[in-house]
């Protein structure tokens, strides 16, 4: 559809960037919160992201990843979660004692389950 319309009009309709909280799926969030309750404590200071080892090489941003989990934005989360090296450096930085490393571990597990409809 989009190709021939592109040929026809020279453009396609832009996809939405909107986070639609009423349609997004928050099963992953609930799973992560259940498996790693400290996740709730994040107040998005970004300390983890500042310290992040993987963050020096790629756009990985744990703070934003947490936000995606909370909002049920699976697509960007799937992308984001793979980049972490699980080195655990962020654990030592978090002012709220969030078990950040396990948040990633659990999130990646949750994504897998989500894709196998096990959530």
């Amino acid at each position: 559809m989009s190709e021939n319309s592109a040929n026809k009009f020279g453009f396609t309709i832009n996809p939405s960037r909107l986070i639609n909280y009423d349609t997004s799926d928050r099963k992953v969030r609930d799973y992560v919160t259940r498996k790693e309750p400290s996740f709730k404590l994040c107040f998005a200071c970004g300390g983890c992201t500042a310290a992040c080892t993987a963050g020096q090489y790629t756009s990985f941003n744990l703070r934003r990843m947490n936000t995606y989990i909370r909002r049920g934005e699976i697509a960007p989360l799937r992308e984001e979660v793979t980049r972490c090296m699980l080195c655990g450096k962020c654990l030592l930085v978090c002012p709220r004692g969030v078990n950040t490393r396990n948040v990633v571990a659990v999130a990646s597990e949750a994504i897998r389950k989500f894709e196998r409809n096990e959530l």
Partner: protein
Amino acid sequence: MSAAVKHIIVAGGGVAGMEAAGALAELGHRVSLVEKEKKPGGHLLQWHALFPDHRPADEVKHYLNVRIKNENITLYTGTGVEKIKHHGHEVVVTLTDGTAINADAAIIATGFDLFDAHRKEEYGYGIYDNVITSAELEDMFTAGKVTTTDGSIPSRVGLVHCVGSRDEKVNNNHCSKVCCVTAVKQAIEIRKQLPECEVFCFYMDMRMYGPYYEELYRESQEVYNVNFIRGKVSEASVNINNRLVIKVEDTLAGRPLKMELDMMVLMVGMEMSKSGTLLAEASGLKRGVNRFLETGDHHYGNNLSSIRGVFYAGTCTAPMNITDTISHARAAVSETVRYLNSR
């Protein structure tokens, strides 16, 4: 200090005025406490529970009422203060009902007005059902049930911070200080009353500056699963089911966010009170940033006015929580006494 009994007029019977009057009467002075409403107590009257510990507001109301039960205090209600001027050794105070009272000194404690939510038209306060103010939510707590206008239990409530604060569009650049922690307190109370109800706070910054505030914030996440979204709500509308639809940027995701709500609570901030403004204009009192009364010195003269014998107490000078208001009122009393003795 001189044993002579002096007469002091306290303009405004809110927290600051009552504390100041009580403290002066305690020292044996004669006090005329002037309150424009039917009964003293100010905004505290409509509060159900107080942050950060959810203590019943009645406890503080009770404390203040006992404080002003003193034969040295004459209470004038239903009349405001129109004008104060210094004359000879005295201050002359004109009430709104025309009567003029002479006194040795006066304390202005005219307090604040809550921001009128109508002025943020885009939030549709007074137009959409279920858009209410934090004060109205307190009434619901007092009534013991939080419901939408059709009487049903809300399944999702949003609390919008900084309504009328930190917003040059309504000509208020100041932070009202108490709204963030009030929002967190109210969010917890909603979750306590309606465990099934999702609660969201839409904030620009979380300003948890006081003792136990940060703890309350943490508790709201850890125990009550209150959600926080960093972004200023830009507008509200209703959909075909008469459910509120709000737009906000989720600044942490860097993307616009849309959410349906059953109830939207506007955390209305503090503004210089209208009565206080009129009084200041009539009496030629200087007003400072954001139209609150300008004090003699921000650091060591925070109760001093530009008129001899006239002092400031409480939120007529800046937004304050109850704790600070009471301390500020006591400071005003000590300034007043110092003035009276030095005369």
